[in-house]
């Protein structure tokens, strides 16, 4: 570990970290917004839901490189546009999170849904007031996995020239110099752990009932 290099390159490390966070977390926020309606719709297809979820699983297994090649064609963006990475990560995260939403909705106890109907909830109010809140423990679990995996995945952006902590790996490999690689690795890990912790704390704060029940 070359501490001098680190102290001389704080700007580079800082900007790589900033880009990385932005690139990793924006898709998470976007997919939270996307996966709730998608999950809702998929859940309500009933018998088709499992087929659709299998397709989502397949999407997650598309190699990222392939996506980076296809997306500029589909979106009309330039090949080096950071938007390509953001969109690709959003697709992965949404595929993952939609599944959690569906699983969460499946977890809502039937008697609670029945009680909600029986005392006069309309479908919309029931979804926002009962079904979704009760799915949140499962959704949060999915969110933690999706966020952590997104933070790990973001490094790959460097392959298409979008800066992130991956930039440090690239530099280290090119120069046969391990310090940037270590820095990138450790920062990536720390960011992932911190993000996980933050989500966990939000979950605890937002779902006191789930904590006490446990």
């Amino acid at each position: 570990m070359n501490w001098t290099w680190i102290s001389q390159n704080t700007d580079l490390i800082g900007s790589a970290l900033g880009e990385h966070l932005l690139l990793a977390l924006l898709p998470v926020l976007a997919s939270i917004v996307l996966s709730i309606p998608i999950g809702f719709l998929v859940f309500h297809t009933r018998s088709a839901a499992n087929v659709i979820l299998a397709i989502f699983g397949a999407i997650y297994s598309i190699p990222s490189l392939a996506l980076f090649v296809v997306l500029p064609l589909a979106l009309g963006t330039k090949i080096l546009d950071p938007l390509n990475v953001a969109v690709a990560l959003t697709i992965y995260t949404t595929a993952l999170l939609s599944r959690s939403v569906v699983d969460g909705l499946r977890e809502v106890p039937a008697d609670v849904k029945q009680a909600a109907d029986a005392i006069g909830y309309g479908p919309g109010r029931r979804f926002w007031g009962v079904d979704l809140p009760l799915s949140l423990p499962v959704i949060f679990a999915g969110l933690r996995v999706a966020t952590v995996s997104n933070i790990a995945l973001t490094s790959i952006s460097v392959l298409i020239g979008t800066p992130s902590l991956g930039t440090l790996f690239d530099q280290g490999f090119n120069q046969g110099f391990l310090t940037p690689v270590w820095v990138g690795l450790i920062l990536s890990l720390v960011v992932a752990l911190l993000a996980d912790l933050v989500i966990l704390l939000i979950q605890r704060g937002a779902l006191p009932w789930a904590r006490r029940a446990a």
Partner: protein
Amino acid sequence: MIRADQQAPGPGRLGNAGWEWALIEFKSVTKTYRDGTTAVHDLSLVIPSDKITVIVGPSGCGKTTTLRMINRMLEPTSGQITWDRNPLRNIRKTQLRREMGYVIQSGGLFPHRTVLENIQTVPHLLGWKKDRSQGRAEELLAMVGLESRLANRYPSQLSGGQQQRVGVARALAADPRVLLMDEPFSAVDPVVRADLHEQFLEIQRQVGKTIVMITHDIDEAIKLGDQIAIMRVGGVLAQVGSPQQLLEEPVDDFVAGFVGKDRGYRGLSFTSASGLPLGSVQLVRDAASARTDAPVLVVDENANPLGWADRTRPGQVQMLGTTFEPDTDTMRMALDSALNSPVGLAVAVAQNGRFAGVVTASQILDQVRHLKASVADAIAARAEADAARVEAEAARKEAESVRQEASRIAADADAEADEAARIEAAIKAAEEKEEQARSAEQAAAAKEAATTPAPTPTVEPEQEWTWDPAAEPKVGRTDAGDAETGDPRPGDSTAGDSNAGDAESHYR
């Protein structure tokens, strides 16, 4: 509101008055599911207002389907259901459901909401102000017998019985006129259930809702129902009537069997074992020291029973079987304990586990016989109470009609008094007038008397004028004469001659 044809604002809260119209009526309702099974077949049933109707039957008899058609969770395949004569189809589902409280087995509480929030669900849906619904929720919490310290707990932190109470409170929150209950007490243990039953009846005495409850437990139905509808598999109504009617005049073997089935034995689960006479038995610490043929109970140093001394193998301990706590356990557990004891004695223990006494199966059965008699008594008492209530109602009505009659008579009397007063006033007025007339007459007479000398000037001057025709015009035009002459009145006899002289001079 939603019932356009509703005729009175406070619908039938006073019993019989509302019986005829504020009710739910099934008219030849059939429900067939898509898979072809008929859950309810040609059901015609009147659910009276402000009473508890219990629908009871074996599983698969369509009782749940029946209940769910009342708040349109399910729609009938044919036939019609009306509420206050208004077809349910005309009422919006969410609105209908908010006007009918719903209690389901084990509460169906929202796990993510606190007790207080759960109770406020329907007021919240109806858009009540925060402090109104909060106040109402606190009131209901007390009504169902829950301490206010539970208000901010989550359902998972409550016992089954407490959850059930919250479920009832939630159903009552917006003061619905109808309460639908889907096996509300079946998820709690028998002792708690008996408690809930008592409290439920007490609440009903206070709020007087139209309640439809379903259960598979005929004892519960008999205990709680004002009206019981027994359904048989295939969704056919077997019989409907009061508990006594069903017990005394079952229409067929099915009803007789259903009402009678296991009644005695299951009834034990509703009864506390606390009334049993506890006997004593020899206690030893060491099984080897048991020397008699009588049963000897081996206990530990805390007097907790360990087992029975084995008579055939000295020093050995035979299994104890189950024990029971007289204060908290039911008669059924006591009987179990006696039946599975190797010496035929049920062992009663105190709460701390110490030996409290023994009782034989036959003593328990004696108690049961006594109990059965008291159940019959209770039914009779209930019938009596009902009769007394009816009588009281009749008396109240009679009192009311007497009161009305009295007030009518009073009104008549008032009217008569008025009339009399009016006549009196008229008489008085007439008398006064007469009096006036009389006094006027008198005054006139007096005046007449006083002016008797005066006629001389009025008459005599005439005579005078007659005598002196020249002055005659002056008689008719006294004033003119006065004005013209400034002279004293013509009646002034003193001027008589001079007047005549003036007049004469005038006309000249």
